[in-house]
């Protein structure tokens, strides 16, 4: 059976958006019933209201979703809207919700995965889909714990839920239930492999700085100095050239205008693992998107709009290569919110370019962190990165 991937996009209040998404998906699906529905909602269209509506409209499909910091589908990129995808074809999907991520991550993962089969006869491929609370500060920890639980042969894709840069509460959804401080894990069993691609567009700006005191995702000092002071010094010349004054910024503007540009890069050998600094804290500490152990070396990174634009196309190419010669029916895309802010008016074109390179519909959202782990990888949590999960036709 050929895969049918339908994407949809809507704005307006939750009820109107739900009705529009359902109508668009039904029109695209025709008589076919989807096996998987994904929905990504801004805070203006609460996931707690949209997910139950879509679940009621497609009761035989597994529904998973997340709240966003922006959302997009082929031809649309919005803030304050919702995007969705419905996938029909030779797939079997199982999913689960795990609550209490901050208190006991392993228990939450077990809760989400426990009822899922390890394999299904006739479906030789399994791909994991993970959405996690984007404010938990446990992005890498959640990704590795889920990957450990799903097993070595299961690639994993997804994103950390957002909340339009309010930084109050993010939500994930499984069927009619949406929850905060939670994660959702779906297993997509397929007869052909899905393709997974990931690429960031950052280069190192500073020499390595050493985390000298930290607690979990909070870095207090770098090279023995308050982390914030070290960050300001490392970025001073570049900020002057760009006319950025970080001292004048706070909240979302600080992330959009400074931290999202100058992120942390962990030298991993030939490459850098990018970590988003999410906040400046009391006493010059900085909070990051996942744990930053003492002794970690970090470089302050930099990026340009052109590097960001081309990295999305590279991620699409990698996902297509993973299809093993099959054409794509469509793709779910998990893109960092910072990429949208940094590309600004160029973002819709970047989405359009990715869709053109893919040659198929796409749907996705802007995340507070992106998840991509191919078999053989030893880390799966990324920041300011584009992740593409392509479905074979």
């Amino acid at each position, binding site marked *: 059976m050929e895969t049918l991937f339908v994407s949809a996009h809507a704005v307006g209040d939750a009820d109107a958006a739900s009705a529009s998404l359902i109508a668009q998906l039904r029109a695209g699906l025709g008589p076919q019933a989807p096996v998987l529905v994904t929905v990504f909602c801004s805070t203006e269209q609460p996931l707690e209201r949209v997910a139950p509506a879509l679940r009621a409209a497609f009761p035989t499909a597994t529904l998973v979703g997340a709240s966003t910091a922006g959302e997009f589908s082929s031809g649309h990129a919005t803030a304050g809207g919702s995007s969705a995808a419905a996938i029909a074809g030779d797939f079997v999907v199982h999913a689960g919700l795990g609550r209490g991520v901050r208190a006991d991550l392993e228990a939450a993962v077990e809760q989400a995965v426990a009822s899922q089969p390890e394999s299904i006869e006739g479906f030789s491929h399994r791909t994991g889909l993970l959405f996690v609370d984007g404010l938990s500060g446990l992005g890498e920890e959640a990704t*590795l*714990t889920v990957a450990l639980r799903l097993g070595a042969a299961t690639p994993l894709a997804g994103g950390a839920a957002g909340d339009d840069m309010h930084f109050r509460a993010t939500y994930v959804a499984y069927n009619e239930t949406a929850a905060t401080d939670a994660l959702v894990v779906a297993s997509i069993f397929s007869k052909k492999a899905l393709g997974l691609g990931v690429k960031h567009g950052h280069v190192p700006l500073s020499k390595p700085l050493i985390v000298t005191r930290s607690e979990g995702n909070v870095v207090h000092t770098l090279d023995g100095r308050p982390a914030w002071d070290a960050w300001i010094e490392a970025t001073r010349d570049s900020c002057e050239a760009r006319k950025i004054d970080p001292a004048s910024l706070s909240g979302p503007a600080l992330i959009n205008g400074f931290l999202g540009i100058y992120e942390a890069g962990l030298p991993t050998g030939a490459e850098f693992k990018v970590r988003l600094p999410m906040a400046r804290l009391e006493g010059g500490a900085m909070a990051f998107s996942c744990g930053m152990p003492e002794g970690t070396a970090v470089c302050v990174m930099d990026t340009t709009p052109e590097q960001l634009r081309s990295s999305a196309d590279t991620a699409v190419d990698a996902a297509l290569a993973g299809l093993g010669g099959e054409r794509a029916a469509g793709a779910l895309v998990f893109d960092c919110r910072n990429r949208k802010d940094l590309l600004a008016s160029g973002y819709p074109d970047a989405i359009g370019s990715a869709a053109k390179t893919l040659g198929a519909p796409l749907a996705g959202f802007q995340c507070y962190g992106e998840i991509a782990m191919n078999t053989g990888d030893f880390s799966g949590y990324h920041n300011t990165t584009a992740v593409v999960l392509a479905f074979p036709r």
Partner: protein
Amino acid sequence: MSSLGVDQIVKLLSASVGERAAREAVLSALSRLALPPQGLSQDDALRVLEAIAKTPGVLGISARFAKSRLHLLEV
């Protein structure tokens, strides 16, 4: 499987915590276990990762993950 060294074990952890933190953790574990930096058996490597896996946070989880993958390589 041929013998392992520090660099190979570091590579299992560096993708999530960076090379420097990974190397510090591996060298510290080798020292505590009185193991040499080269010529390690797979069992030795597992003991090193098990020691690091007791660390709280992302380093411990990374080591638990790496342990599961190292073990599967010998199957």
